[in-house]
C-alpha cells in the first residue's frame, strides 16, 4: 500500500524535523532554523497530499472513515493550515517545534492504526459532510498554530534567552489570541455544519452523543478562555497561554479520543 510507505517516510521526516526544531529552540542552531523546518514541513505536507490522493483514487472516497484516514488527513491539514498561518503571520513560526511534536504523535499513531478500507456509510454522501470536515480541520490547524506559540512562550518564561527578544513576545502573544478567536469562528461553524448534517443524516440536529457533547464543551472552554481575557485585564500572560493549551487538550481529546469510546452515531452505524 503506497500510502503506508509514504507514512513511514513522513514519520521519519517529522522525527528529524522535531529534533532539529527543538535544537533550534534551545539555541544550538543558527537562527535560520525556523525557515528550514518550515521548508521540510512543506515537503512533508506535499507527500501527504500524494498519499491521500492515491488512497482516494483506489478506494473511491475521501479520508473520512477509519482512524488511519482521519489521522492521515489531519496530519496533512494541520501541516497545511500551519504553513499558511506561518506565512501570513511570521510570529507564528516561533511555535514550529511544538507543531512538529504534535504532528509526529499523530503520524506515528497513524502508522499503528489498521489501514483497512471501509466503504463510505450512506449518511456520508452529503454536502454538509464537506463543510463540517473542512471547518473542523481549519479549527484544529489554527488551534495547533496558537498552541505552538503558547507553549514556546510559556517555556520562554523559564529560559528567557531562548529564541526571541521581548518585543517578539508581544507580537507572538497577540498572534496567539488572534488565532484563538479565528479558531472560535471555525469551531462555531463546525458545530453548525455538524448539526445540519446530523439533521439530514439522522433526523436530529442535536442528540448529545459523546462527540457532540465534547465538542460543545470545547466550544465553551474557548468562550470561557476568550472571556477571561476580556474580563480580567490583568490576567497573567502565563495563565492565558496555559488556558490556550488546555483548550487544545480538550479539542484533541474530542477529535481523537472520543471516537474510541463512543460507538454508533458518528460512524454511520447499521
Amino acid at each position, binding site marked *: 500500500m503506497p500510502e503506508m510507505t509514504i507514512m513511514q517516510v513522513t514519520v521519519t521526516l517529522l522525527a528529524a524535523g522535531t529534533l532539529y526544531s527543538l535544537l533550534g529552540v534551545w539555541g544550538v542552531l543558527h*537562527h535560520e532554523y525556523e525557515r528550514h523546518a518550515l521548508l521540510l514541513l512543506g515537503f512533508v505536507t506535499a507527500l501527504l497530499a500524494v498519499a491521500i490522493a492515491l488512497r482516494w483514487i483506489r478506494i473511491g472516497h475521501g479520508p473520512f472513515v477509519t482512524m488511519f484516514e482521519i489521522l492521515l488527513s489531519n496530519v496533512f491539514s494541520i501541516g497545511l493550515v500551519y504553513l499558511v498561518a506561518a506565512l*501570513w*503571520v*511570521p*510570529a*507564528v*513560526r516561533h511555535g514550529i517545534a511544538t507543531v512538529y511534536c504534535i504532528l509526529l504523535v499523530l503520524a506515528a499513531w497513524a502508522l499503528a492504526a489498521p489501514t483497512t478500507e*471501509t*466503504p463510505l*456509510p*450512506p*449518511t456520508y*454522501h*452529503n454536502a454538509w459532510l464537506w463543510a463540517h470536515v473542512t471547518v473542523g480541520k481549519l479549527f484544529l490547524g489554527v488551534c495547533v498554530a496558537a498552541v505552538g506559540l503558547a507553549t514556546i512562550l510559556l517555556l520562554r518564561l523559564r529560559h528567557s534567552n531562548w*529564541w*526571541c*527578544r521581548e*518585543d*517578539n*513576545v*508581544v*507580537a*507572538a502573544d*497577540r*498572534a496567539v489570541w*488572534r488565532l484563538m*478567536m*479565528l479558531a*472560535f*469562528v471555525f469551531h*462555531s*461553524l463546525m458545530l*453548525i455544519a455538524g448539526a*445540519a448534517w446530523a*439533521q*439530514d*443524516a*439522522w*433526523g*436530529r*440536529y442535536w*442528540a*448529545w452523543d459523546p462527540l457532540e*457533547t465534547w465538542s*460543545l*464543551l470545547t466550544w*465553551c*472552554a474557548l*468562550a*470561557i478562555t476568550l*472571556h*477571561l481575557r*476580556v*474580563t480580567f485585564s490583568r490576567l497573567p500572560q502565563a495563565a492565558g497561554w496555559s488556558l490556550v493549551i488546555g483548550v487544545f487538550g480538550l479539542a484533541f481529546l474530542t477529535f481523537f479520543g472520543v471516537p474510541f469510546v463512543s460507538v454508533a452515531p458518528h460512524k454511520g*452505524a*447499521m
Partner: protein
Amino acid sequence: MIRFLRSLASLKLTLAGMVGFAVGVIVYRGDISHTQWWVAAPLLLLAFNLLAAIVTNPRFRYQPGLLLFHICLLLIAGLAAVDKLIAFEGTVEIVAGTAFAADQVRHLRRGPWHRTQLHQVEFTQGDLRVEYVDGLRRGRTSSTLWLPRTPGAIERIQVGDKRPLIAAGYRFYTTSNKGYAALLTWRDRNGVALTGSINFPSYPLNDWKQNNQWIMPNGASLDISLLVAPQAYARRTAWTLDDETTPGRIRVRHAGAERVLAPGERIAIAGGSIQFEEARMWMGYRIVYVPLLPWLLVTALTGVLGLTWHLWGKFGRAAPRAATAGMEASPTNA
C-alpha cells in the same frame, strides 16, 4: 434600575454562567434521568446577563460585529427554547401497501405547546429497498411513497437517507429499523373477516429471532415465526433487502401444535380461522417536527458572520504587520 442592570451585566457573572453551563452539559448530556434545568438554568442566567450587557455595556456600541454575534446567541437560546416547547418526535412502522395512520405513532417527545397535525398527513407506503455494501454494512435506503395530490391524482416520491418526506410540517426520515411483516386474515364462525399485519423484529439486525405474538380477536395468543433462510445474506458481499428477498412462509404455534403456512393457506383455530396472505416489508420512520430549523441555521450563521466582522475589524490588516515588526527586531532573525 440602571445600577441593577449594570451589576446584572457583570462580565464575572458571564464567566460564572459559562462555567455553570459547561458543568450542566457534563451532568445532563441528554440523559433524561437528570433534569434539563442543569442546562436551562445557567442559560437563563446568561440570557439575562447578556441582555443587561447589551443595554449597558458601551463596548457593544462601538463593536457592531460583536453586538451582532451576541444578539444572535440570545436569539439562538430563544429559538431553541421555543423549539423545545413546540417540538414533536415520534416513530412509526408502516407495512408496504398500507396507509400511514396517526394513531400508530409512538410519541417519544412532545413539547407542551405542540398541537398535533399528524392526522393531516396522508400517504401510502410503497416498495422498499435497502442496499448492503458488505454483510451487515448498510448502504443506501430508498422507500417509495404514494401521496394523494389534487383530487384523483397520486404522486409517487422516493425518500431515504438524507431525503425525508415533509408533510404538514413533519419530517419523516427512514431509519435502520425495518424488516418483514406477515399479513393475516382472521375469519370468525360467521365468515366475518378482519385483515391485519404483524411486524417481526428489525431485520437483519435480529435475523435470529424473527418471531412475534398475535393476539386474536378472541383474546388468545398465537406464536408466529417467519421462516428466514439461515444465511439469507452472505457476509462480506453486497446484497439488497427488498421485495424479491422477502421470505415466503411462516410457522404458527398454538396450543402445543405447530403448522407451516405458505401464502394463501389457512388453519382453523379457536372457533375461526387464520389465513396467511403474504409476507411484506415494513419501514420504521422517525418523525420530527422542528419548524424553526431554518431560522436556527440562519441565526447561527449570522452570528458567526458578526464574529468574523469583529475579528476583521479588531485584527484586520494591522495584525501581520505588527507581528512582522517584532520579528524583524529580533536578534535571532537579524
